[in-house]
């Protein structure tokens, strides 16, 4: 998958997780940009991404994922 394809799929997951159909994400989007992006929703987000892409993040990777770009890079380099 390319970065763009992943981003499109991620956008859907974000909209679903944060209950916001107009949410637009970029690679720079981070927890500061989305009010509801707290620890609870972070786990939800990760769980949805893992399910949608059929991957599994390591526990030690989760805290380094500070923005959408980090997530995509990690997914492409080591998971997809």
């Amino acid at each position: 998958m390319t970065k763009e394809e992943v981003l499109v799929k991620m956008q859907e997951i974000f909209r679903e997780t944060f209950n916001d159909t107009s949410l637009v994400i970029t690679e720079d989007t981070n927890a500061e940009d989305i009010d509801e992006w707290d620890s609870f929703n972070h786990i939800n987000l990760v769980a949805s991404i893992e399910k949608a892409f059929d991957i599994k993040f390591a526990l030690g990777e989760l805290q380094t994922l500070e923005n959408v770009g980090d997530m995509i890079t990690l997914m492409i380099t080591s998971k997809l």
Partner: protein
Amino acid sequence: MLFSTFVFILGFLPVVFLGYFILNKKKLLIASKVWLIFSSLFFYSWWNIAYLPLILASVLFNFILTNSMLHVKASSVMNKKVLLLIGIIFNVGLLVYFKYMDFFISNVNALTDSEIALLHLALPLGISFYTLQQIAFIVDSYEGLVKKKNFLDYTLFVVFFPQLIAGPIVHYKEVMPQFESIKNKIFNYNNIALGMFIFSIGLFKKIVIADTFSIWVHQGFDVAYTLSFFDAWIASLSYTFQLYFDFSGYSDMAIGIALLFNIALPQNFNSPLKATGMIDYWKRWHITLTQFITAYIYTPIVRSFVPLTFHKAMFATLLVFLISGMWHGAGWTFIFWGFLHGISVVINHYWQKKVKIKMPQYLAWFITFQFLNFGNVFFRATDFDRAISILQSMVDYHHILVSDYLIRRMRYWGYSVEKLDGYSAAHSFVDVDAVLMIVLGFIIALGFKNSTQLQQAFSTMKRVSIRWYLWSILLMSLSFMVMSFQTTTEFLYFNF
């Protein structure tokens, strides 16, 4: 050896620093690591050499265990999962044995009326921290995040003296690449200037601020029998400030010292007393602990709850805070403190998700601060009776005027005030100094940029202006002055 002593600042640190860079300059890269390891172990043994075998055994065991993880076959009995389990049981077991045995025994004694003798084990220094750091390493190894390592690197990762005793809790992948990088092996004047600056902030926080507050904390929590309204408030606020300035001062010093060696440790505090909610607070207070707990305890718990609902997540949150309370100390007051924080974070989540009323910022801050201060009474008090007595005094406005100092003031201002019957003001310790320090505490904790923000400003400068050097010199000399006529006390988090 404490960071805030002359023997450390003027003796140990310069020697270790020079030795490290001289060895590196001579291209003796292995020797420079060995030097740093031995220096760290010397630093650790300065307190009590009796703790040394335990930490060495722990390092050796965890290294062998994680190394075998790389080589085991999935089909063998001792597969990765079994090794992971053994590793966690070993590390948690050691911590439980040294930290919680007497707590368990005394509870069993109380419940069953038995008289099992207590072990009276001294808590090995830093065990709460190096245990967490190594558990994270084991889990990372299990999940394949650690690709290569050797014994020397692993030992350095655990015992590197700036962060050995009380964090910041670091990850292998955070620090080891920094030790490997060639450009980090040479003198970096910018890092030295920045490191000294951050260190001097930390030293000032510890020596000048936290240790001053400790006087009233000690009076209020350990000495005075009954407290007046003002005494109780001064004591509790003093502790809230002491705890913050002590621990964040320690962290600043750790970060500053590591920078001298060109190692960037992670941020541990982000002005927690400015928090406007309890979720916000835990993103700002002891950040590396929150991250550890979130990643390695909270996440596995909620992952096991399928499908995850809001209420299940809140249950996990509360559970995790109880564990956190327990980690801070073996006592019911700590567990209750964890419970209070857990409940408050749950309420905060519930408020955000269901109530959705935005509070004015200052009100949100006020409630958060009051709650923290309230919870800290349990965190500091030796037992529940003590905590409750202090809290009672804090709301006992009938006895507001019991303080001798205030009575004198009121009389001075022309009010006729009598002492209330039955209350002795003999122990009142409220004076102008205490009130001024509390005001100063608020100003510094709320009105100033924190060390990380200053660090960022520092890093973006092309040339470090003379102003920053002057600040370092000023803060350091003030601290040295206080240090020369006062014995330094241990850092609060060394006991946790």
